[in-house]
C-alpha cells in the first residue's frame, strides 16, 4: 500500500468517525459557546469593557475547546487495539499521525473558526475583527493540535490524562495565542496585522514540520 493510499485511508476514516459521532465536534463547540458566555456575567455587560476582553476570551475559549478533543487522538484506538495497527504499519508513523491531526484540525478547527465570529457579536466586536478572529483561530487550532498530539501520545490511556495533557500543552500554545489574538487586536485598533499573521503562520508551519516526528517518538515511548 503506497503512502498516499495509507494517508488517504487514515484521513477518510477520521472524517467518517467525525460524521458518525456528532458528540466529537458538538461537545467542544458547546463548551466553546458556554465558556464565551460566562465572562460577561463575571465582568459586566458594558460593551466597552467587553470589547477589550472579547478577543482574548474567544481565542482562549477556542484553544480550550480544542484541548478537550486531544485525548480522542489516540485513546480510543489504544482501547480497541487499532493503535497497534498504526504502529506496525509499514508507512512512516509521523505521516500517519499527521494525517490524523489534519483530519481533526479540518473538522474541529473549521467548526471553531466558523463559530468564532458569532461570539464576536457577544463582545461587541466589529465585523473586520470577527473575520480576523476566524482566520487566526483557524490557524491556531491546528497548531495546538499538532503540539498537543505529542502530549496525547505520551499520555495514551493514562489516568487523568486529559488534565495533565492540558497542563503540558497550554504553556506551549502561548506564542500562537499572542500572535493570533494580537492580529485581531491590530485590526481592532485599525493597524496592520501583517506581522502577527506572518508569525502565527510561521509557528504553524514549524509545528507542522516538527510535531509529527516528536509525536511519533512519543507514541513509541508510551506504547513500548
Amino acid at each position, binding site marked *: 500500500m503506497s503512502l498516499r493510499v495509507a494517508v488517504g485511508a487514515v484521513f477518510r476514516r477520521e472524517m467518517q468517525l467525525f460524521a458518525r459521532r456528532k458528540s466529537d465536534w458538538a461537545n467542544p463547540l458547546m463548551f466553546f459557546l458556554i465558556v464565551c458566555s460566562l465572562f460577561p456575567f463575571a465582568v459586566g455587560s458594558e460593551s466597552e469593557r467587553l470589547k477589550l476582553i472579547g478577543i482574548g476570551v474567544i481565542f482562549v475559549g477556542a484553544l480550550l475547546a480544542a484541548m478537550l478533543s486531544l485525548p480522542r487522538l489516540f485513546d480510543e484506538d489504544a482501547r480497541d487495539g487499532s493503535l497497534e495497527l498504526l504502529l506496525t504499519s509499514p508507512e512512516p508513523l509521523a505521516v500517519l499521525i499527521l494525517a490524523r491531526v489534519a483530519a481533526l484540525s479540518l473538522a474541529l478547527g473549521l467548526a471553531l473558526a466558523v463559530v468564532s465570529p458569532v461570539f464576536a457579536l457577544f463582545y461587541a466586536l466589529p465585523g473586520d475583527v470577527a473575520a480576523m478572529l476566524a482566520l487566526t483561530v483557524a490557524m491556531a487550532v491546528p497548531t495546538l493540535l499538532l503540539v498537543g498530539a*505529542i*502530549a496525547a501520545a505520551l499520555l495514551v490511556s493514562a*489516568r487523568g490524562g486529559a488534565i*495533565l495533557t492540558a497542563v*503540558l500543552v*497550554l*504553556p506551549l500554545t502561548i*506564542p500562537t495565542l499572542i500572535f493570533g489574538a494580537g492580529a485581531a487586536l491590530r485590526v481592532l485598533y485599525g493597524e496592520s496585522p501583517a506581522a502577527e499573521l506572518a*508569525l502565527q503562520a510561521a509557528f504553524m508551519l514549524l509545528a507542522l514540520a516538527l510535531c509529527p516526528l516528536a509525536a511519533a517518538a512519543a507514541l513509541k*515511548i508510551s506504547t513500548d
Partner: protein
Amino acid sequence: MARTEQQSNEKYGGRWFWRYASPAAFFPLAGRIEALCWVLAIVLSAIGLYLGFFVAPTDAQQGEVYRVIFIHVPAAWMAMVIYLAMAFWSLLGLVLGTRLSFMMSHALAPTGAIMAVISLWTGALWGRPTWGTYWVWDARLTSTLILFFLYVGYMALAASFDDKKKGDRASALIALVGAINVPIIYFSVKWWNTLHQGSSVRPGSSSMATTMLTAMLIMTFAFWAYSIAAAMHRLRTGVIERERNAAWLRDAVKGWLR
C-alpha cells in the same frame, strides 16, 4: 596492566568518564561532589551576603530595598540554567539510553522549580516599592512564570507513570519540547510586551557599583553550588530507590543502615 587498560579502552572507547554512566561508579563521586558543594554554598553565601549588606552602599535611587537583587537575580538565573541542564541530561538519556542521565534530570527539577518560585516572589517584593506594583507582565517575569509551568508539567508527567523506564523517556521528551519552546516563548512575550505598552518597563541591572556586582556574582555561584548539592543528594536518593536490588548498594550504604 596493559591488558586492563586495553580492556578499559575497548569497553569505553578510550574515554574514562564513560564508567560514570553506571550508578555504582557515580554514587561515591556524587557524594563527594555533594559534600564539596554544600561547603561552597555556605561559604560563598556568607561572603556574598556580608558584601551585600555590609559593604555595598545604599543605592542612589532605590535606597536599601535594592538588596533583594542579591537573591532575586541568582534565583532567576538558576531557574533558567537548571532547566537547560535538565534538557541536556534528558537528551543524553534519550540518545545514549543511560538511566543515570534520566535520574539526574529528575533530581534537578524540584530545585529548578523552587528557584523559579523564589525568583517570582522576590521579584514581586522588589517591584512593589520600586516600581509600584507586585506584578508586571514583562518578558523576564512572564518567562519565569512559564518556566515554572514547564517544571511542574515535567514533574507531573514523570510522576504519572508506574513504569519508571517509560516515565523517564516520556518526561525527557517533554523536557526537550519545552527547551525548544523556551526561546520561542521568550521572543513572543517580548513582542507581546511592545504590543501592549501599558505595562511599565523594568530597567535591567544598568549601572551598578562594583561591590554590588561582586556580591551578586558571588551569590550566583553560591546558588549554583547549592543547586548542585541538592541535585546530587536527590540523585543519590534516587539511586538508592531504583537500584535497591543491586549488591553494590548494600555495601555502599552499610554505614547508614541500622
